[in-house]
Structures are given as structure tokens and as C-alpha cells.
């Protein structure tokens, strides 16, 4: 096996192996465990760097192993997978640092970090999957790896949340599997190709109806993880998980895998033109728009900070689906770049929510009056993230919304602009009061459960990650037109998908 075939496997292994070793580490070996985690995360980052550099210089990376006769296990690196792989490896490193700080002295850390690494392995696998069956493999693995993280607290609430998560995701996985096998029996291949493979192979004898049904099956299976309304019920419940898990779930792993899958199915399985021709993109765009508005309205009424953020995720993640389902290259850029932008902003917000809960015992929006005076850095990061979500220039969210809006206009679907404006107003309505209360109101009295204070506002392992990701969210907006920026990548991807 030459180096270009080994690299994708190495990238998987850089989180898989530390994870497996960590499972067998005794609870007390804190240093070894942290070192393994960080080493794995750094190594993955380096390897991904090598891969990006290689792809930039024209090397193509592909690992192909036989799975069953006629079907291979394929890992490859195209522009879209690189975008997602890079995002997850960067955020894995940051989240690992955060989790080490967050879970200091709590029980079952070996179990936690073991599954944490498996979860990232599955995500990276989803990103690099070169055909639908490999995608399905890692997609299901992701379900299994995240379940122990969601129930990690071991309370009855956590157990029920875990059950609810499984009900949704395993049923979704089953739908995805039926769709995948059916598609395979019709087309005889499942390889992701630019512009899709269905339109070439689906011969005249194959009815369009069955292709539509398969599309619905696939999107329903992926929509569970991407939390498309009405398949979103598990997400707010999963909030019982520890903050780093929520951060990972919402920004990189589960939700993002669903959205990424939708992008793959529309672009590299069906092909955007053929999908539009089948008439399936408009209903999907309407569903995404409904999700955006509905979840934003629900977010308005949540007093629990993490629940409010959860509904915000449901809303924001659908921007990706919306951008892809709006048939047009400019909106596509907006949707694809939001994969990265939403991740950076949402992970910042969850880190900050975790800091408030861990340091002050603040879990509710109504307890946040004056909290910025006590924790200015955390709230500064939170404010950056929230403003980004609203779409204030020059932050990351603005770029996404700008491209989505102009793309919708260019594609002649003005109603989407109205949805975007409405959603931004709602975003502002549920984020601005928090920011106002935190900075401009006086604290009501003692914090619910304040931890003894050191010299900084909280532990540095908790403070550094949100600051870093907030700066990223600022940078990708400010420097959007610099080479290698997420926006540039998204433009490249959109050109390839539309450029034939």
C-alpha cells in the first residue's frame, strides 16, 4: 500500500488507536490519558495538513478495500471531505483541551475519552467516505459512539435522553440503509462522483417514482441527525450530556454528519441538476425553511441556556440544507461554507455555556444578569458567537447569510430571502437579550453555585478554547477572501458541482 492510500487510514487511526488504548487505562492515569488525547489530536491535525497540501499539489488520496463482492470500502479526499475533515480535526483538538479541563476529577473519564475518540474517528470517516456504503458504515458507528457520551452522567434523565436519541437515530439509520441498498440494486454502484451517478445509471426502465422514494428515504435517514423538523426531537433532550459533548455534537459530529450527508446525496449521488429535475429540491428547501423558522421561534421561549442553544442549532444547521436545496451555485457556496461557520460559532457558544455552568452554576438565561462582569472573557467570546449567528458583519454568519441571500435572488427564489430575514430577526430576538442582560444589568446576588476563584475568571483549559474558536469565527469572516479560507474552498466545491 503506497503512501497516498495509507494517509486516509492513518488519519482514522490517529484518533482510533489513542481511543482504544484509553479504554484500558486505569482511571488514575490522568497525565498519560491527556497526553495520548492531545498527541492523537495534534497528529491528526498534522496528517490532515499533509493531505490538504497534497491535494493542493494534485495528489489524489484513496484507500480502497474489498467489503463484499461488488462493493468496496473507500476512503478518499475530495474538496468537500477536506473541508469537513479539517473542521473536525481542528475542533477536536480544541474540544479535547476543553474536555480535559471540564471533566477534571469526575468519574469514568477513561470511558468518556475512549468514546470521545471513537466519535471523532467516526466523524472523520463520514467526511472521507468515498461511497454511500462507507458513509453508512461510519454514520452508524457515529450513532453507537455518541450514545455512551450522551448517557455519560448516568442519571435517569440521561438514560431516557439516550433512549430517545437511539430511537430516532437507529430508525433513521434503518431508513438510510433501505435507501442505500435499493439504490445499489438499481444503479450497481454507490461511488460518490461530481455531478452525481444516479442520472447516468438510472436507465429508462427505472421509474422516476422509485428514485424519488429513495431520495425521501435517504433524506429522512440523514434528516434525523441533521435535526430537520419533525425529526429533531432527540436534540434538545440530548442536552443532558456534559458540555464538551454538546459542543462536539452540535458543531462537528452528529448534527454536522447529517447535514454533510444531505450535501453528499444531493451533489455526489443524485447530482444537483438531476435532483432539481426530479422535483425534490423545492420540497426539501421548504422543509429546511420551515425548520429554520420553527426552531427559532421555539428557541425564543427556552429559559434553559443549553436548550435555547439546541433549538438555535436545529435552525442554523438547516441553512446548510437550504443552501444546497436552493438550486444555484451562489447559494450552494453559502450552504457549504456554513458547515464550517456554524461549527465555529456554535462550539464557542456551547463552551461558554459550559463555563457558566461549571464556574458559577448558571444554567438559565434568567440567571445571567450581570454575568459578564464576573466572566468578561467568556462572555466576550459568547457575544462574538451570538452576533455571528445573528449575521452581523464581518463575522462568519454574515458571510453565510449573504451568499445564501444573493444566491436565492440569483436562483429566482425570493421567498428564501424573506425566510433569511425573518430568521435573523428571530436570532437577534433570542440572542440580544442575553447579551444585554449579561453586560448591562447588575447581578441579582450570589451565583447559584460559584466555584472558589483563582486569579483568572475560570480554569485556563476552559477559557482558552472558546476564545480560540471565537477568534476563528471572527477570522473566517474578516479574511473570507484569503486563499485557503473556508469560503474559498466552498467556492471551489460549488464550481466543481456546477461547473460541468
Amino acid at each position, binding site marked *: 500500500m503506497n503512501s497516498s492510500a495509507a494517509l486516509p487510514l492513518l488519519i482514522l487511526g490517529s484518533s482510533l488507536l489513542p481511543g482504544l488504548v484509553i479504554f484500558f487505562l486505569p482511571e488514575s492515569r490522568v497525565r498519560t490519558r491527556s497526553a495520548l488525547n492531545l498527541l492523537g489530536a495534534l497528529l491528526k491535525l498534522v496528517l490532515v495538513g499533509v493531505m490538504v497540501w497534497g491535494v493542493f499539489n494534485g495528489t489524489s488520496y484513496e484507500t480502497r478495500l474489498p467489503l463484499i463482492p461488488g462493493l468496496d470500502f473507500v476512503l478518499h479526499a475530495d474538496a468537500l471531505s477536506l473541508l469537513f475533515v479539517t473542521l473536525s480535526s481542528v475542533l477536536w483538538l480544541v474540544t479535547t483541551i476543553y474536555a480535559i479541563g471540564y471533566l477534571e476529577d469526575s468519574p469514568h473519564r477513561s470511558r468518556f475519552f475512549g468514546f470521545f475518540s471513537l466519535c471523532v474517528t467516526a466523524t472523520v470517516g463520514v467526511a472521507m467516505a468515498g461511497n454511500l456504503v462507507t458513509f453508512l458504515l461510519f454514520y452508524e458507528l457515529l450513532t453507537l459512539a455518541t450514545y455512551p457520551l450522551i448517557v455519560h452522567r448516568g442519571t435517569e434523565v440521561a438514560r431516557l435522553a439516550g*433512549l430517545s436519541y437511539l430511537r430516532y437515530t437507529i430508525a433513521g439509520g434503518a431508513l438510510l440503509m433501505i435507501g442505500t441498498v435499493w439504490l445499489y440494486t438499481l444503479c450497481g454502484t454507490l461511488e460518490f462522483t461530481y455531478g452525481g451517478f444516479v442520472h447516468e445509471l438510472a436507465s429508462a426502465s427505472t421509474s422516476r417514482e422509485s428514485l424519488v422514494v429513495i431520495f425521501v428515504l435517504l433524506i429522512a435517514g440523514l434528516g434525523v441527525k441533521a435535526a430537520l423538523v419533525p425529526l429533531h426531537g432527540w436534540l434538545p433532550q440530548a442536552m443532558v450530556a456534559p458540555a464538551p459533548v454538546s459542543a462536539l455534537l452540535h458543531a462537528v459530529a452528529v448534527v454536522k454528519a447529517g447535514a454533510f450527508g444531505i450535501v453528499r446525496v444531493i451533489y455526489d449521488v443524485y447530482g444537483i441538476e438531476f435532483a432539481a429535475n426530479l422535483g425534490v429540491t423545492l420540497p426539501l428547501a421548504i422543509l429546511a425553511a420551515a425548520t429554520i423558522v420553527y426552531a427559532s421561534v421555539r428557541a425564543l421561549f427556552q429559559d434553559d441556556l443549553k436548550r435555547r442553544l439546541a433549538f438555535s442549532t436545529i435552525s442554523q444547521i438547516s441553512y446548510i440544507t437550504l443552501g444546497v436545496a436552493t438550486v444555484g451555485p451562489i447559494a450552494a457556496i453559502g450552504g457549504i461554507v456554513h458547515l464550517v461557520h456554524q461549527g465555529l460559532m456554535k462550539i464557542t457558544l456551547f463552551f461558554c455555556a459550559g463555563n457558566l455552568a461549571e464556574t458559577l452554576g448558571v444554567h438559565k438565561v434568567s440567571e445571567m444578569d450581570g454575568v459578564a462582569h464576573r466572566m468578561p472573557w467568556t462572555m466576550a467570546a459568547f457575544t462574538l458567537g451570538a452576533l455571528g449567528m445573528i449575521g452581523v458583519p464581518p463575522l462568519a454568519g454574515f458571510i453565510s447569510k449573504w451568499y445564501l441571500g444573493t444566491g436565492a435572488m440569483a436562483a429566482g427564489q425570493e421567498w428564501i430571502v424573506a425566510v433569511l430575514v425573518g430568521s435573523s430577526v428571530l436570532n437577534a430576538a433570542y440572542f440580544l437579550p442575553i447579551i444585554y442582560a449579561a453586560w448591562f444589568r447588575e447581578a441579582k446576588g450570589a451565583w447559584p453555585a460559584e466555584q472558589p476563584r483563582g486569579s483568572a475568571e475560570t480554569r485556563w483549559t476552559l477559557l482558552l478554547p472558546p476564545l480560540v474558536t471565537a477568534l476563528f469565527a471572527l477570522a473566517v469572516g474578516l479574511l473570507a477572501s484569503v486563499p485557503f479560507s473556508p469560503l474559498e474552498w466552498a467556492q471551489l466545491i460549488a464550481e466543481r458541482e456546477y461547473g460541468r
Partner: protein
Amino acid sequence: MEVIITTFPWGVVLILVPLFGALSCFMWPNVARYLALSTAFALVMSVIALAVRLITTGSYRHEIGGWGAPLGIELFADGLSLLMLAATAVVGFAVTVYSIGYFPNRQLLRFLPIWFLLLAALNALFLSGDIFNLYVALELTGLAAVALTAMSGGRAALIAAMRYLFATLVGSMSYLLGVVLIYHSFGSLDFMILAERVEASPATWSALGLMSIGLALKTALFPLHFWLPPAHASAPAPVSAALSGLVVKASFYILLRLWLEVFPAGHSLIPGEFLGALGVCAIFWGGLQALRATRLKLLIAYSTVMQVGYFFLVFPLATVVAWHGVLFLLLSHALAKAAMFLAAGNIIYFAGHDRIVDFDRIAQQLPMTLAAFALAGVCIMGLPPGGGFIAKWLMVQASLESGQWWWAAALILGSLVAAAYVFKVVGHSFTQTTVREKTNVVPVLMEWTALALALASVLLGLVASWPLAWMEIGGVFAGVPAR
């Protein structure tokens, strides 16, 4: 060296080694455990050697004592036999290792001889090329299995063993009647000769009907499964592992051979659709009962009833892809189910009970055992990368290709039920508890054995292309439609 491997009659070795093991364990009780380990290891090595031989030279026949059919006894090995022999050797090795930790010395000495007798009977069954030898091996398998079931003593175990004995005797009797009818009509017992001579006639129909009913009873196909849950739940854990993992598959294997090689389609009173429909009933009845079960071993036993239902879906589908799927399911189920029962054995050894609601107290002190159960569960519910996923994929593919989508629906719904009962157990193992019970320390080897089997069942999905290629040795599927 290579000449030896490719010409030596490994089939004979596979039957003689466990027989010798049984005898020697009985004769030298002081060193029985070492003899047992070496016997199990020798079995694994012989299967590997047989695999090398089959892969290089194709299927082979061995005439014992130089007397071939129709007079003498012939051994016959092809890819199908290899698959079953491999499963037997691997599960057999694991169970042997496990039993040395599990049983107190006196019980171990009673267990080992019968256990190796069972392995010898199973190997003989998978190596038989004629329907009467199959009967003999089947009867031996059944009797050894009943004896092992009764080992745990106790009222429940004895009642279960008596029921099992009844079922197994009636089953083989019915099969034997079919054999007699066939011999009377066509004058041969050999597969190959029969395949040429058999024609549609009332005698053929009734013979295949009788044989199928007898074998379905022994395989515990719904509604003939009544004997299985009590027997598998009350036997000692390593015995349950062997019963669910191997013994149930022996009778099903004969059914496969009959359908694949002796009787062309349409020669049966019982249409494939009927068997498939019973399979679907088994899937849902077994799944439902597993969901309702409050004891872990009973849950696993009903899970076997359910999985047996999957096996029978092959008869209505009957394409090459479907056969591949079901055979792969046999293999992965053997590993996964044995792992589950061994994990359950660890829990019983540790806590003295297997009440699922009280698992939170146990799980945190036996993480490896719970990991074994969960991993085997991944395989059972057909999630990747477990072997069950590949099997499910192939079977769903076969049913969609042949336009019989309803079998695919049953498969998928069944796997959702399986997920529900697996997570019913796993869900309890993450909850925190402060209650500590009086417990026994589980030998490390027992925990590792369960985990190793479970890992094998999960990783099987990643190397699926090998067993799928082995199945083709000897061209068993030559007469089967491609889609």
C-alpha cells in the same frame, strides 16, 4: 510441507481429535484441563489446514478405509462445510477456555468428555456427504447437547432438558422417516447420486416434508421453538453458548444442504414462502419475548429464536446473494451469540443472578463483560461494522433485487426490535449506583474470552470478503439463480 497440507485427510482428523480428547479427559482427570486446551487448539489448527487444502485444491471427498459410496462411509468437505467447521472450531476453542474458569473441578470433569463428544458429532455432521450419516451425527449431537443441558442440575434445568430431549428425538425421528422414504424410492443415500435421481413424486414430497419438519423442530423455528428458551436459559453459560452458537445451526445446515443440493426447487410439499412466513413470525415473536424478558439469559435465548427466523428467509428468496447473506449470518451469529452467553455467564458468576434491572450495580465493576455484550449486540442488531450488518445488507439486497420487498421490511423492522432489546440491557449499565453487592471475582480469562469472541463478531464485517469467497469453494451455488 505444502504437499502434506494439501493431501492430508484433515476431515478425519477433525472427527478423531475431539473423540480422542473426550477419551483422554476421561482417563487422565488430573491433567484434563491441559488435554482439553490442546484438543481445542488442535481443532483450530486442523480447520486452518483444511481451509488451506480447500482453498488450494477445491472441495474433496475422503473414503474412509478405502470404501467409497454406495458401500462405505464418505467424508465430504466444501466451502459450506468449511464455514461451519471454522465457526465450530472458534466457538469451541472459546467455550473450552471459558469452561475451565467457569466450572468447579468436579463439574469440569463431567463436562469435558461430553463436550468433546458434541464437537466430534458436530464436525462429523458438517463433513457428511450422505443423508444417513447426517442422521447419525444429528442424533449424537442432540443427545450430547441434552446431556450438557441437564448439567446444572436443579429442577428447572431437568425439566428443560427433558423437553429438549423430547423435541430432539421427535425431530430426528421425523428426519429418519424422510431418509427411509428416500432410500426406498431412489436406492441411495449419497447427495450426489440422489441429486441425479430425485424426481417429483408423492414420496419425494412427503420425504422432504417430513425431513423439513423434523429439522425445523430441531432448529426451533416458530412455532416449534417451545423447547429452546428454557433449555438455553437454564443450561450452564458455556453450554448455552455452544447450544445457541452451534447446535441450532447443525440441523439448519442439513436443511440447507437438502434444499441446495438434493432437491431442486418445486419438489417440496412446503413452499419456501411458507417457511419464510414462519421465519417472519419467529422474528417478531422472538423479538417481542426478548423485549419482555426480565432475565438476561432468557432474553438472549429468545434472541436466538428471532435470529433463527432470519435464517428461514433464505427459502423464499433463494438467490445467490441471499444464500451468501444467510450463511454469513450463520457465521456471525455463532460468534456473537456465544459471546453474549459467555458475557451473561460472567455476570451470573459475578453476582449470582441475571436480573436486568439490577445491572447498574454490576456493569461498572465488569466493564469488559459489558463491552463484550454490547459489541456482540452491535452484531446481532445488524449495525456496522458487525458481521450482522453485512448479512443484513446482502439479504435486503436479495429481497429488493427479486422484488420481494416485504422480506426486506421484516428484516429491517426485526433489527429495530433487536436494537431495542440490546439497549434495554446496555442502557442500564451506564446509570450510577452506590449499592454494592456481595460478589465473586471473575477470572480474567473468562472476561477476555467473551470480549475476544465479541470483537471477532464485530470485526468479521470488515473482512467479509474472505468468508464470502470460501463459500464458493466446490460450487454449491451452481444451480441457484443469480437474482
